[in-house]
């Protein structure tokens, strides 16, 4: 996939023959992983449509967004972190803390309009705290966010070990609300949480592509030392990405509590690993500096589609979902290695 034309182009005006120009004709190596994921998705969908009745109904795709809304939102936050070359293990625990706290506060009679910003702020603060520890004390992100994982999970269990039902009117109203999308002949019904998840993807994509902050994220992931020497705000950006990840996790927790109208400290267990897997399958390089939110979206859809296929089949053990994701992860990590090595 890397065809390079190294023919020197002689420039006019007496320029010496050595003024060579290396034009590169190839699909940008950055896009190879995401194209591979897209191809995989198309193949899986076609296979499903060919083998199962009603699989080609538009609701199958729309429902992917609904069923994976929480994972999608969390994976979007994770994308920011991984793009800087970091990792955030605390997101699953932050979800459990926010659902538990949300349910407890709502049951305690707090107004929903106070609870919502409060829990989102808490998530952002946890993220910012982890980011600050990582930046100022030069702690490995793995360790700092592992500490955050234990802390948040422990707090959630401390608040309540059991499932707490939510009877708040606003929460149940949002949970019961249905949105009709004009897709297909009869239209497709979906939930608000799916819309929120899609909005998160769109906003993240715009931020990463069109803002200085977004480009700084890529620069830091490419080479943090260079970024510093180029005068970029490395510390601020690092703390910001963990803040975003924490915020997204809290938002994921809120979506969870809306969807299930309950809060439970064991919710979101292991979700951080699903989010990381989605990013990797979507072509976001774990070493940082390369990847797109669109890839993360595709990664989430791939894992969702695997589950959908298993549901449609009925005869398959649900363990297959994890086995296939494991195989895909291996395949994609090896592919990333090969692509990045060729680019060198």
């Amino acid at each position, binding site marked *: 996939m890397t065809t390079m034309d190294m023919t020197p182009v002689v420039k006019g005006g007496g320029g*010496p023959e*050595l003024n060579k120009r290396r034009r590169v004709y190839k699909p940008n190596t950055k896009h190879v992983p995401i194209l591979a994921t897209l191809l995989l998705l198309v193949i899986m969908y076609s296979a499903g449509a060919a083998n199962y009745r009603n699989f080609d109904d538009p609701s199958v795709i729309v429902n992917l967004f609904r069923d994976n809304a929480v994972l999608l939102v969390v994976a979007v936050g994770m994308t920011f972190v991984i793009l800087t070359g970091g990792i955030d293990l605390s997101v699953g625990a932050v979800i459990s803390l926010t659902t538990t706290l949300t349910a407890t506060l709502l049951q305690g009679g707090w107004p929903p309009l106070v609870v919502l910003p409060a829990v989102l702020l808490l998530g952002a603060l946890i993220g910012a705290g982890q980011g600050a520890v990582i930046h100022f004390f030069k702690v490995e992100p793995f360790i700092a966010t592992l500490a955050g994982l234990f802390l948040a999970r422990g707090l959630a269990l401390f608040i309540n070990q059991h499932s707490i039902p939510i009877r708040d009117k606003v929460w149940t109203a949002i949970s019961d609300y249905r949105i009709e999308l004009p897709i297909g002949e009869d239209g497709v019904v979906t939930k608000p949480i799916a819309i929120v998840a899609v909005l998160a993807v769109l906003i993240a994509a715009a931020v990463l592509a*069109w803002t*200085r902050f977004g*480009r700084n994220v*890529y*620069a830091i992931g*490419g080479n943090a030392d260079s970024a510093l020497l180029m005068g970029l705000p490395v510390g601020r950006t690092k703390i910001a990405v963990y803040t975003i990840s924490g915020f997204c996790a809290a938002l994921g927790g809120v979506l969870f509590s809306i969807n299930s109208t309950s809060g439970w400290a064991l919710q979101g267990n292991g979700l951080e690993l699903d989010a990381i897997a989605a990013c990797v399958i979507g072509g976001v390089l774990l070493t940082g500096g390369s990847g797109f939110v669109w890839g993360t979206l595709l990664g989430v859809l791939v894992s969702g589609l695997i589950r959908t296929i298993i549901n449609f089949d009925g005869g398959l053990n649900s363990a297959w979902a994890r086995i296939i994701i494991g195989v895909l992860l291996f395949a994609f990590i090896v592919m990333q290695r090969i692509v990045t090595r060729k680019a060198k």
Partner: protein
Amino acid sequence: MGEQPPVLEMTGIRKVFPGVVALDGVDFRLFPGEIHALMGENGAGKSTLIKTLTGVYEIDGGEIKLGGAPVRISGPLQAQQAGVSTVYQEVNLCTNLSVAENIFIGREPRKFGKIQWGKMRRRAAELLARLELDLDVSAPLDTYSLAIQQMVAIARAVDIEARVLILDEPTSSLDASEVEQLFRVMRRLKESGVAILFVSHFLDQIYEISDRLTVLRNGQLIGEHKIEELSQVQLVEKMIGKELAALEDLEDKAQSNRERAAGAQPVLEAKGLGRTGAIAPYDLTIHEGEVVGLAGLLGSGRTELARLLFGADKPDQGELKVAGKPVNLRSPQVAMKHGIAFSSENRRTEGIIGDLSVRENIILALQASRGWTRPIPRKKQDEIVDKYIKALQIRPADPERPVRNLSGGNQQKVLLARWLITEPKLLIIDEPTRGIDVGAKAEIQKLVAELSDGGMAVLFVSAELEEVLRLSHQILVLRDRRLVEKLENTADVDADRIMQTIASGATS
């Protein structure tokens, strides 16, 4: 030139590190529209001077004036704002981003907070065109060669309204045509009035591109000259200095050894051995009991040559024979099996393990060659270590002391002991006397002479010419990554003769 006032004027710059005066009252001037080479050997104070200018170090004395006004430069960002931009040897850009982004990141043109990609690409292309570069500005930087990356770094530096551009060894990893391209860019910038401070170890390049040069030695200003007023030989003399020291008896000894070395068996023969980009193909034969010295300036390929003989780097051409048999030294382990030992120039980073004791450091290589499954009995260890502590006069003579606490000279002896106990047939020592005091230097030199007396072949690499002259039977002179001359160390060979070769290439 010279009629205009200088854009940069540094006077009486003094910088002191604990125990060392790195810069001692150095003056330095830079005029607009000139390329000025800063010359000096390792430790002369070049990089310290540059770092005071880029704000990495604060000066302890003296004054820096930019455009006539005194300035205090307290950090890299402030230096950039004052108009001093630096491009380092290792390109400090983000290769995962596009060319245009690398030029503009942090300063992207924006509208309502949104980056204007089109405008950015256009401006990047314009800027590169001014440097006679025609690149695809939206391609990732890592699709271009290092030379191009370097020029993108220069484009970035120049766009930040640079009045002074510092190029710190920009050419060390470029090939000839890339250097040519860089020089064209430099000349263009010079015409536009930018003052360029250029550091390079390649004398020919200095003479090709520079207008003036300043020589430093041991933290002191040796002189500022117009390039046409100073020959290469004079320059090398100024850089190295002449300090014909004592130890004449050692020199005599080395001379007398030669007869015996001549009749001895070759330990190692290299034919056409080379590695692209590191060292041009060379022939080399080392006999038993012979000391072969490598002379040349820093960056001339001394270490690179030696590393090929130890399997630390892989040659991409040529052949190598050890004790008459062709060998392929795939790795240092293989070289060790063939009786070759290599004592690295980076004592601290590649040799000594500071937290381990003297005993453990000495035993390390022997243990490695036996394999870790057959530990050396403690009693045997103590015996060996005691023997070498005595023989090399390692002080303090305490085998259990962490090596970290020893002086540089004694650390070097520990390192030597480590290799000596493996009883190598060929000992390669790279810069064994760097950064150690005079007394320890003499002891190590004496040791090398004694080892060769005992029949060991030694390849001795040193930046100090006098030392090479004193110890070697045969001297190889390197220049610009090429072995340019082999000299029998006879009575008529002296430092001047070698400097001549270093300065001007082969002289036969």
